């Protein structure tokens, strides 16, 4: 045999009890890129198989929510959305917010939902939450088309609508939101493996969070009306994302660069903490899940 090398350096890989403190094996993820693509494809095409309305379900949910919000918050409670039609205002907020919740709930279930498959074969576990974030991006794209449809409709109805030049950065904003959802989702998914309490928390936690995220009201409004609780919203990075998204799309509200920088820092921090915990969990979660 002409393989004289027998030193430890020639091993292809090593399986040990603990990961190195921080190891995101990008090379490995890249090797499995086809799997990522196939997972996305599976998620997108199987969700509405054997339904009559099919992908229309993607549209029905945000439309009905927007209608409800418009009736409750604008017509009954009288929240003022300025020059923008309330329905469009809500639709913008909800479309963006939905992407975040879809990412968060989808990824926070990673280990529990995939226990059967994770228990049998190895592939970089991060592929699964990544695929959730990407397949939801497809869903978001479809929902965003509906928003554009209504935008054009209202425009020709004579509503005073205009885009802000910053709209060019809108995709970036969505990416930031996806990463925030992914990071938070990974963090929670890791904790759910051992303590199921978190999966209960997330259900109503998301609902509460929505009220703090300026989805159905302008950020300025809460500062005006509830000055003592306004800080709750101001510390919520999501509120900035949604407010900024509306600023870009509808040219209403304000964009705070300080707030956006804060959001960016929080997103990066949450993502890396999430990744760290996720990596630590993936090695032995199968024993506790």
């Amino acid at each position, binding site marked *: *045999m002409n*393989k*004289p090398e*027998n030193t*430890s350096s*020639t*091993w*292809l*890989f*090593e*399986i*040990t*009890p*603990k990961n190195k403190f921080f190891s995101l094996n990008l090379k490995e993820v890249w*090797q*499995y890129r*086809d*799997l990522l*693509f*196939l*997972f996305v494809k*599976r998620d997108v*095409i*199987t969700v509405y*198989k*054997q339904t009559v309305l099919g992908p229309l379900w993607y549209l029905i949910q945000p439309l009905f929510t927007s209608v409800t919000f418009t009736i409750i918050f604008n017509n009954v409670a009288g929240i003022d959305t300025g020059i923008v039609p309330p329905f469009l205002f809500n639709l913008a907020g909800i479309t963006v917010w939905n992407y975040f919740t879809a990412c968060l709930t989808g990824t926070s279930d990673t280990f529990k939902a995939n226990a*059967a*498959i*994770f*228990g*049998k*074969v*190895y*592939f970089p576990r991060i592929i699964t939450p990544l695929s959730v974030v990407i397949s939801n991006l497809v869903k978001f794209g479809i929902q965003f088309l509906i928003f554009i449809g209504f935008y054009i409709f209202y425009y020709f109805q004579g509503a005073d609508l205009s885009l802000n030049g910053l709209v060019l950065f809108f995709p970036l904003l969505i990416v930031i939101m996806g990463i925030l959802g992914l990071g938070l989702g990974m963090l929670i998914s890791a904790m759910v493996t*051992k*303590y199921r309490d978190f999966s209960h928390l997330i259900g109503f936690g998301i609902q509460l969070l929505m009220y703090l995220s300026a989805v159905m009201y302008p950020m300025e409004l809460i500062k005006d009306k509830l000055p003592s609780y306004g800080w709750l919203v101001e510390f919520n990075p999501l509120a900035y994302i949604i407010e900024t998204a509306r600023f870009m799309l509808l040219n209403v509200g304000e964009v705070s660069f300080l707030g956006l920088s804060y959001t960016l820092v929080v997103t990066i921090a949450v993502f890396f903490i999430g990744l760290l915990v996720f990596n630590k969990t993936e*090695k*032995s979660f*199968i*024993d*506790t899940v």
Partner: protein
Amino acid sequence: MKKDIILKAENISKQYRLGQVGTGTLSHDINRWWCKIRGKENPYLKIGDTNDRSTKGTSDYVWALQDINFEVERGEVLGIIGKNGAGKSTLLKILSKVTAPTTGSIKSRGRIASLLEVGTGFNGEMTGRENIFLNGAILGMTKKEITSKLDEIIEFSGCERYIDTPVKRYSSGMTVRLAFAVAAFLEPEILVIDEVLAVGDAEFQKKAIGKMQDISREGGRTVLFVSHNMAAIETLCTRVVSMEHGKICSSGDPTKVISDYLQSNSFSERIINFDSISKAKGNDKIRIMYAGIENASSNNKNDIIDVTSLINFKMNIINQTNKELISVGFDLKTIKGDIVFGSGGKFNCKLNKASEICCEIPSNFLNDDVYQIHVYFHTNEMNPLFSDYELLTFEVKDIIRESGYLGKVNGMIRPSLSWSTKDIIS
């Protein structure tokens, strides 16, 4: 010649916590964390019982594996044998990176792919073709690799006609065929296989074993193979490791290790008897108070059974379901795992009272070998109630021989057939 070691396991141990995850877990977690902060060792690593499922231990922690060391050479087909719970599957799980060892390390020079259970990640809504891609990617193949082998995979599976039908419409056998076909065309340096041959019909099993032989011989690939089927292990493996209670107890030449393993496992569990329901074998549906292989040709039912003995397989059971009519059956298998026959029927057993069930196995039927009874109970609607893979083990001896031939008579059964001869006058 220098050995070409492709895989090396050093001091692998795996500890499991028994019981439920609850408040105790949190306190142990905090304690463990606190020790780590102070730079101390994990306090729970020092305790723990060896893994013996039948005895009651004192600790909440058990060692599923303890100090496993072994090396595998390139091209070797290593068989791993051991009783249920000996730690075989845990070892394979660690090898395939599904779970991490508690201590120790594994070093490898090649990609490891596992076939822990075929059909992983199959999605019922997707078609066979789509699932080939998905499953292949999960097992580590790239799309290009799969595309180049797609035709072969489909042909090997024999599911050509259904390949564009959603997998949920497949029969279970077809699903397994498709899944095994994907896995068979994997090309990792090291392939880990756990009991895949137990599924599929005879034709497919033959095909699967053949494919495995091809993989290991022609491809020069390394295979780790876990099975209860000693015949398959003996045919396929170049070396065998035998495990017991989480430790390796012997390794080496297949024929020798297998025969040692078979002998060390007591064959004489011919009768089991329990005094109380709570201790009896079974579950809350069915309790087996007594089960025995009795020699019906002799006055003493406990006499040694030989080839000419009439055998009674007798059970006293208590039916704790809510219907009297239940289905009772058993597979009689050789100790190597080959099933000789299966038999069963439906019986009326009074609820919550002991009933005796007896099956007569004719004389001059079984060969001299060690046999096991795999018993199973079902409801009338064939929903499983209870089954025991190794309820009884008994040996059939060969004491009286008339022919003068002293070697072992071949075959799984040895029926006494009628022979005749007559002169042909031409």
